[in-house]
């Protein structure tokens, strides 16, 4: 006769504890009556319906007891208008904190658990072999793939692919590079994505002698072929190979990684010996009901068997099955995503502490504002508002502020994400396109996370001060004197004030450091006129990688050198050079060692600088002066030559300004996980110093230039000097390149101004943002400290009156009042100095205490003046009134 257990449990859970017995008892009684009147089945059905109905009513009742009303929201909005300074500064601080949190979250989720935009994309896995003795992945696995295809039951639709970059030559005869995936036809079964037009690749396309066909991506279709609806069946050229378009894939499809075109792989897997054949990637889909662990176990069993049958090649190979996304983000073997996340969190600890301080700062200010409204709160309390009601109101006020800030933060995140991905692309992918599942859009999870941060910010900035302020509301009420003292700042506020002072001490230093770092980039004045240079990144098909027939087996550098010769014959062209990197752009960094004294590096890991290989005429073409030593000579291209040229910035930053000519340097293994045991490179000799050409790495300016023959460049930039201006020359460069060799791919054909705009915009954007935020945060902190100190002194009006009434001298009274705030300021300043000293020791590069000494002394004086001003106004006011009056008013 008893009701269903789940129903009793649910109501017991949802009902307030005081009404749990009633709700469950009612359920039991009503169910019993129904059983008697309606029979078992109908009684249970009705009880189930009623449980849901009553449960939701109880839940609504509970929610309404803590929820806020629209009136609170309106009041909150009104407060924002009433205190515009607080709204602006507080809102900006919260927005900054939320921005940092949301962008970090979005980036981590994009890396750790991205959504693969394919049907059941999370079940697509990569299969690979890890060679622990060589510390790298073994990708010559076609022999293994043939076995896996036959025997694996936990992974289906096995597909292989390899990347090829090709020149796609359209009807206009101009070539433009595309990333081609040579895939087995099963890749399309694996992706489960139907074509937008035409068909996908089939097994028939892979057979020997089949017509060369290609499936193109949506972007290529719209960008190169103007969205031609009759594209299917059209002939195009890939390099020098004619091929037929058989299909167009839908927008956003870049499977397996970041591909624009798909061609048949066309290999007979069974024909390869172990560890022979081309290097490929292998993908598959977990079979229904199979887990990742099942696939790993099955592959391990197969692998053990191969170790027996092919010990010479497979003895050390370890099979791996990893989700698609993880296979392409270069996670070091042996490191889990959890560990990586933990490292990320730990390394961001200072940032998290800073965010807490920002929120604490807003709390400090809102607390000061809340205390200034004590009369209003006491009246509200007297009119029957409970403490909870008042705290909720303060919370909602902060929530309104934080919500506005969150909207700004999300917009900034959306914008900043583009820049963040650009850094990831430059730093981790060497400029190559990012996987197709990574884009600059905000995920719903990030929006939800931002919501959580918003509530957290409102709790810290609204509910927390609310709880402290309302703790003594009862006392204020008992005294019957709205405006009477009663609120107390506890020791926690002393800590908050001292911490604020510490942080505000760091702001000027950080601001100046950022400004000086930014000015290196923004104020950099190139020795050449960027608008006179047309640049392009060039690549050709390398020997041994040709697909199909007719592709030239040549190198990028040698073809580029031929293009250079042809361009020199073009009217208007003054000079052409080739280099691995463009001036004024990002250069990947390398760790170096100096033979002899050097400036103190930024950290104990030593100096890191950018580097680029350039043809010997590079400096001449760019009109860059050799300021010491000599330029490159033809002899420097000899195999055993070790000459390098460094720039001004290198001399300043690495050598501390000493004479660089003759100094020897060498590269160390990068501090990466890839090959920690790599031997150091041979010593190189600096033969000259060139004026700075804007080579920047992640660690700042400073570059090393190596001479190189054109034919040794596997990836090069063409730099064309056009004294009459680079505008309109792009199509000419493309036409010349295609005419020289249809396989030569030209990327980013543009003027040097355009090529260097993005990094400069990036620095300008971040420098401005950081300076603005630091400035506002400083202002906010000073405002908060002033408000709280002023308030605490104002609270002592009565005490001052009594002291004066009892005959205490004004000097003694002033000292008694000023003592505590001054102590707080002193505590903050001393702690700040200690922290700064630690920072300066840790980061000697860029931040020098001496350099900021004047700023710090000025800051200490400013801080003390603010403290004195905050205390002086209320003290003088208290001293001016008659003691009796003070006693009457405040007693």
């Amino acid at each position, binding site marked *: 006769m008893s009701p269903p257990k789940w129903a009793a449990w649910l109501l017991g859970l949802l009902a307030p504890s005081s009404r749990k017995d009633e709700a469950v008892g*009612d359920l*039991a*009684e*009503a169910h019993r009556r129904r059983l008697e009147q309606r029979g078992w089945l109908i009684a249970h059905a009705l009880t189930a319906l009623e449980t849901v109905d009553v449960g939701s009513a109880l839940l609504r*009742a509970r929610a309404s007891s803590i929820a806020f009303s629209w009136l609170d929201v309106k009041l909150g909005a009104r407060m924002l208008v009433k205190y515009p300074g607080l709204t602006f500064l507080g809102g900006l601080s919260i927005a900054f904190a939320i921005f940092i949190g949301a962008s970090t979250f979005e980036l981590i989720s994009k890396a750790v658990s991205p959504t693969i935009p394919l049907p059941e994309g999370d079940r697509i896995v990569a299969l690979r072999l890890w060679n622990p003795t060589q510390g790298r992945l073994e990708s010559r696995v076609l022999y293994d793939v043939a076995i896996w295809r036959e025997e694996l039951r936990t992974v289906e639709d096995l597909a292989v692919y390899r990347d090829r970059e090709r020149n796609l030559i359209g009807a206009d005869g101009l070539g433009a590079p595309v990333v081609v995936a040579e895939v087995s036809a099963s890749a399309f079964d694996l992706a489960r994505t139907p074509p937008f037009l035409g068909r996908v690749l089939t097994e028939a396309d892979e057979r020997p002698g089949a017509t060369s066909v290609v499936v193109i991506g949506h972007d290529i279709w719209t960008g190169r072929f103007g969205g031609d609806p009759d594209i299917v069946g059209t002939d195009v050229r890939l390099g020098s190979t004619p091929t037929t378009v058989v299909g167009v894939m839908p927008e956003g499809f870049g499977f397996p990684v970041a591909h624009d075109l798909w061609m048949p792989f066309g290999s007979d897997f069974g024909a390869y010996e172990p560890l022979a054949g081309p290097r490929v990637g292998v993908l598959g889909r977990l079979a229904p009901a199979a887990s990742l662990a099942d696939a790993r176990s099955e592959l391990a069993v197969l692998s053990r068997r191969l170790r027996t049958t092919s010990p010479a090649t497979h003895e050390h190979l370890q099979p791996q099955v990893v989700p698609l996304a993880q296979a392409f983000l270069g996670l070091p073997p042996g490191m889990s995503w959890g560990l990586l996340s933990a490292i990320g969190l730990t390394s961001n600890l200072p940032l998290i502490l800073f965010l807490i301080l920002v929120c604490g700062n807003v709390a400090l200010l809102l607390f000061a504002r809340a205390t200034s409204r004590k009369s209003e709160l006491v009246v509200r309390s007297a009119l029957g508002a409970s403490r909870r009601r008042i705290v909720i109101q303060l919370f909602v006020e902060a929530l309104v502020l934080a919500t506005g800030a969150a909207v700004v933060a999300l917009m900034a995140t959306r914008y900043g994400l583009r820049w963040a991905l650009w850094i990831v692309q430059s730093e981790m992918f060497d400029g190559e396109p990012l996987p197709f599942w990574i884009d600059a859009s905000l995920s719903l999870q990030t929006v939800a996370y931002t919501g959580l941060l918003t509530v957290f910010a409102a709790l810290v900035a609204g509910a927390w001060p609310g709880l402290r302020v309302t703790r003594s509301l009862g006392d204020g009420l008992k005294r019957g004197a709205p405006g009477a003292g009663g609120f107390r700042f506890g020791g926690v506020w002393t800590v908050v004030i001292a911490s604020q002072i510490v942080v505000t001490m760091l702001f000027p230093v950080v601001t100046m450091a950022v400004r000086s770092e930014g000015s290196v980039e923004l104020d950099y004045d190139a020795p050449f006129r960027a608008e006179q240079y047309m640049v392009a990144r060039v690549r050709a098909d390398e020997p041994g990688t040709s697909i199909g027939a007719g592709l030239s087996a040549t190198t990028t550098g040698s073809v580029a050198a031929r293009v250079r010769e042809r361009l020199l014959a073009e009217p208007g062209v003054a000079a052409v050079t080739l280099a691995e990197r463009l001036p004024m752009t990002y250069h990947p960094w390398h760790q170096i060692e100096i033979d002899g004294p050097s400036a103190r590096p930024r950290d104990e890991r030593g100096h890191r600088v950018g580097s680029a290989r350039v043809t010997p005429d590079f400096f001449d073409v760019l009109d860059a002066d050799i300021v010491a030593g000599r330029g490159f000579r033809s002899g420097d291209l000899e195999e055993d030559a070790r000459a390098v040229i460094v720039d001004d910035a290198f001399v300043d930053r690495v050598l501390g300004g000493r004479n660089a000519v003759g100094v020897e340097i060498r590269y160390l293994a990068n501090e990466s996980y890839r090959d920690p045991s790599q031997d150091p490179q041979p010593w190189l000799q600096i033969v000259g110093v060139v004026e700075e050409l804007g080579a920047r790495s992640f660690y700042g300016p400073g570059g090393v230039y190596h001479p190189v023959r054109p034919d040794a460049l596997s990836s090069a930039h063409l730099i064309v000097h056009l004294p009459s201006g680079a505008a309109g020359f792009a199509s000419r460069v493309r036409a010349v390149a295609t005419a020289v060799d249809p396989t030569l791919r030209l990327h980013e054909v543009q003027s040097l101004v355009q090529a260097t705009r993005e990094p400069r915009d990036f620095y300008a954007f971040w420098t401005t943002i950081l300076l603005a935020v630091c400035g506002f945060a400083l202002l906010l902190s000073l405002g908060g400290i002033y408000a709280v100190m002023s308030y605490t002194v104002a609270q002592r009006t009565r005490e001052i009156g009594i002291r004066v009434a009892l005959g205490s001298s004004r000097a003694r009274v002033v000292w008694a009042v000023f003592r505590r705030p001054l102590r707080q300021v002193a505590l903050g300043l001393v702690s700040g100095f200690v922290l700064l000293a630690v920072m300066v020791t840790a980061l000697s590069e860029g931040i020098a205490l001496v350099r900021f000494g004047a700023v710090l002394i000025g800051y200490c004086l400013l801080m003390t003046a603010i403290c004195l001003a905050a205390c002086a106004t209320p003290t003088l006011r208290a001293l001016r009134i008659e003691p009796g009056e003070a006693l009457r008013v405040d007693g």
Partner: protein
Amino acid sequence: MPADSLAEFELLVMLAALRLGPDEAYTVSIAEDIRQRTGRPVRRANVYTTLSRLEAKGLVATRRGEPRPERGGRPPRLVTVRADGLAAVRATTGAIQAMVGELTHLLGEVG
């Protein structure tokens, strides 16, 4: 100050509570009484919500009753109509009677 006037369902709940008396008026019995007398289904959730509202207005008071076996040994929350509640019932029914007035020949006796 005039007594609160009651919404229709509030009036029904108040009348049921008055009829059942302070020792027998609780959610389940009130819902059952209204169902039997009006012939229309009553959602217990509505009775909960209405009783909470009436209690918040000070029209009824509630107390914990004795445990009862038919409730699985759990006590009901008994409802007592307070003086203000009675006044509200009188005011509402009085208003209805005044409005009905000489329409009794059309509507029959009310109240």
